């Protein structure tokens, strides 16, 4: 195989893996894929070995171990045999890496997506995912998972999760 051919094969494999990863859901928020979350940083293909580089959302996120296993299983289903998952910490994950598609899916699921860039300190009202009112209040910076804060709508009174800017 000449070098050019090898390069084409490698990038085709890479593209295929990105497509497969689109079908691996986050175990705690299953409407989001691991790609939507922005935690897949790189895919390296070398001969028959595939390396997927991931970064954790929060240091203590218990979903990370499950995500690594899910990625391995899914790639194995598609015939990949040698799979290596590497975790890197820097640059640290930010919600700025979440896909626009992912944000839409979150909202439809009943979780308000992060509305600001992580470096934007301005105070904006969080929208209620049920009735779309902006008349809401923060109940707690800490919610049902590390990545969410707990809010309540002052109009429809529903409590809801907000995926906080991070």
């Amino acid at each position, binding site marked *: 195989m000449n070098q050019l051919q090898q390069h084409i094969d490698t990038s085709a494999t890479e593209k295929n893996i990105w497509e497969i990863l689109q079908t691996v859901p986050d175990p705690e928020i299953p409407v989001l894929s691991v790609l939507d979350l922005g935690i897949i940083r790189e895919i390296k293909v070398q001969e028959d070995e595939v390396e997927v580089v991931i970064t954790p959302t*929060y240091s203590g996120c218990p979903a990370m171990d499950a995500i690594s296993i899910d990625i391995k299983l899914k790639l194995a289903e598609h015939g990949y045999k040698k799979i290596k998952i590497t975790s890197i910490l820097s640059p640290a994950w930010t919600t700025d890496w979440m896909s626009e598609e992912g944000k839409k899916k979150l909202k439809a699921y009943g979780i308000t997506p992060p509305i600001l860039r992580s470096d934007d300190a301005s105070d904006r009202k969080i929208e209620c995912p049920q009735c779309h009112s902006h008349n809401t209040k923060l109940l707690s910076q800490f919610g049902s998972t590390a990545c969410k804060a707990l809010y309540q709508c002052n109009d429809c009174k529903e409590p809801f999760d907000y995926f906080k800017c991070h």
Partner: protein
Amino acid sequence: MDKTTDQLINYTLHLADTTLILAQRNAEWCAHGPILEQDIAITNISLDLLGQSRNFYQYAAVLINQSASHQNKPATEDSLAYLRNEREFKNLLLTELPNGDWAQTVLKQFFFSVFQSLQYEQLLSGSDEQLAAIAEKSLKEITYHLRWTSEWVIRLGDGTDESHERINKAIEFLWEYTGEFFIPADYEKNIEPGITVIKEKWLQKIKEVFEEATLSLPGDVYMQTGGKQGIHTEHLGYILAEMQSLQRTYPGAEW
């Protein structure tokens, strides 16, 4: 093993032990918090600290395995957390103190979070890339801890007579365990620019929040030391007994 590596391992273990022990303490509130939201908040902080300690332990294990002659089983994050004895733990004394009431718990976390944010900012510009990466990741989480604990100190200090009295009791009890933060252990002495220089910034931040909380800084008191060298209060043994009993009784148990 050369001296520099030995120091780096001990320093990494100090960072790991400190976050693990405070995580374990905060987790004691699980299902006992004053209200559900605050129960979730303190255990979320616990989980963040636990994740940070795992990152440090994993790194310490790599360093130990690279430098040790492999007579023993290789070190892992689990063996470092579950199979070391009291005298080997290098956590800050503050982190092992009992939770007491809610005031004591949040004040303990507040003193630590202010210190942790300053210490990790230093690590960012330090010479060790992996410690800098762990610090970078952790700092985003510490921002929440700092905000939450500051709010609680203000709420309790500037609250009712009862809450004011309780947080003052907590200050009186915890203050003597904060001096140790800024006295470098042998293994910390080569860490530049060093923790002595952040003392003023720490005091400044505590003062700011205390002022808003209508609280005052205590005067000079005798400061306890020893945690960084493995000399602990009587409380650490009980924490380890509870935390390690499963691995000690059933070595290698998994679920």
